[in-house]
């Protein structure tokens, strides 16, 4: 067997790092679009109308039962077909990252809607009533009174979901996206499977740093948002 080659690790890192931004774009894009969809789902789940609750519940359930990689392939192969048949729109040539973003947005929205819903429900409804009773509109009451407090409650779970997402995101290479992992795969195959360990180790290290970074950022956010609580 070929001996372990530490020098290769040092050589491979500069080749991987340029693709860090692809990985980060997937994460940030998914957090953005997934949160929007998650918000809509949470809103539906909290709705008085049984149909909306039911639809949101159904969606969340289906997503929970679907392995990420399966959804990724369904979107990658299915979405172009769907768009062609239904909208007569050819999206086959779209960038890979588009399909990755669609997939992970669909995935991320489900747990994040639960995080949002439970954070919303953690804030005493009486504060909302007090706000509308002195003349705020329902939206103002939500935006100025409930949302800031629910955000504090949601942040730790939101952070965990982002870390989960980042790790799930490493599946994107399977449809050919060249992100950190994708580039790693390319390097390994260029070397005919040699140096796999020397490639995966720095990848693990980069993901470790990313996770630490996300954790730290969320701790900071929590700190900033809950300053008023600490004053108590």
């Amino acid at each position, binding site marked *: 067997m070929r001996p372990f080659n530490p020098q290769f690790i040092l050589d491979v890192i500069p080749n991987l790092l340029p693709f860090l931004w692809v990985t980060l774009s997937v994460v940030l894009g998914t957090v953005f679009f997934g949160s929007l969809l998650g918000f809509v789902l949470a809103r539906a789940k909290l709705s008085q109308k049984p149909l909306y609750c039911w639809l949101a519940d159904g969606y969340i359930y289906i997503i929970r039962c679907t392995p990420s990689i399966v959804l990724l392939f369904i979107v990658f192969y299915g979405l172009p077909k769907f768009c062609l048949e239904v909208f007569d729109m050819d999206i086959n040539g779209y960038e890979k990252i588009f399909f990755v973003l669609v997939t992970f947005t669909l995935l991320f929205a489900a747990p994040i809607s639960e995080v949002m819903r439970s954070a919303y429900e953690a804030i005493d409804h*009486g504060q909302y*009533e*007090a706000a*509308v*009773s*002195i*003349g*705020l509109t329902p939206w103002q009451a939500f935006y*100025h009174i409930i949302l800031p407090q629910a955000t504090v409650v949601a942040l730790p779970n939101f952070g965990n979901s982002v870390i989960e997402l980042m790790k799930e995101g490493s599946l994107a290479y399977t449809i050919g996206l060249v992100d950190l992992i994708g580039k790693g795969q390319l390097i390994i195959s260029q070397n005919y499977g040699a140096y796999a360990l020397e490639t995966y180790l720095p990848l693990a290290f980069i993901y470790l740093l990313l996770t630490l970074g996300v954790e730290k950022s969320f701790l900071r956010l929590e700190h900033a948002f809950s300053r008023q609580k600490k*004053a108590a």
Partner: protein
Amino acid sequence: MLKITNVHKKYNDNEVLKGVDINVAKGDVVVILGPSGSGKTTLLRCINFLDHADQGEMEFDEYHLQMHSATADEVRKIRQKTAFVFQNYNLFQNKTVLENVTAGLIIGRNIEKNEAVDLALKALAKVGLSDRVNFYPSQLSGGQQQRVGIARAIAVQPDVILFDEPTSALDPELISEVLGIIKQLAEEGTTMIIVTHEMKFAADVATHVIFMADGNIVEEGRPKDIFQSPKEERTRNFLRRVLPQVEYNI
């Protein structure tokens, strides 16, 4: 000024309000008495549209509306003319005392910040909390929190303030500081509808007393008449149960 007629409200099969009428003129202090579960809270909440009545008519100055079919716009207009003081204060936990009071002005009424702060500071001075403006609700005693609740309500200069048992959640030694403020408001001619179990206070401030039971108004009239010579058996029973306690307290 405010007249509501034939208010009905059901929770599932439980008929909580069975056709209640109330008429409030400017400067009135209407006190609503009644045993627990008689629908007093629900009535106040329906007036402010925190609950939606199944039936009922409301005339409020120039507005005239059906309570079950009020539009969001009508609801907003009525709420701009009223304020609510809650049993458990419901202060905004993420806002300081001052911000609690300015919210209804700055956010709800688009009043400019400087002016809103002026109005809020006046309201807070009235409830004796000028030295607590930068505190958060969690740093205050129950009595102080309820006084912030009152300041928040008076700052928006509503036509009517609705009080739902404003002292029920307070330790006995804190009750009088809150009742004192409400009494002062009454003396200044503030129009109020107050649900309370404090009988002596009720007799003191009320211009009109309503006794409710089981979703109906059983009896109403001047405080003197209701407290000293109630006509209905149910009113007499209720007062007999609650009045001796008051005498012990004094």
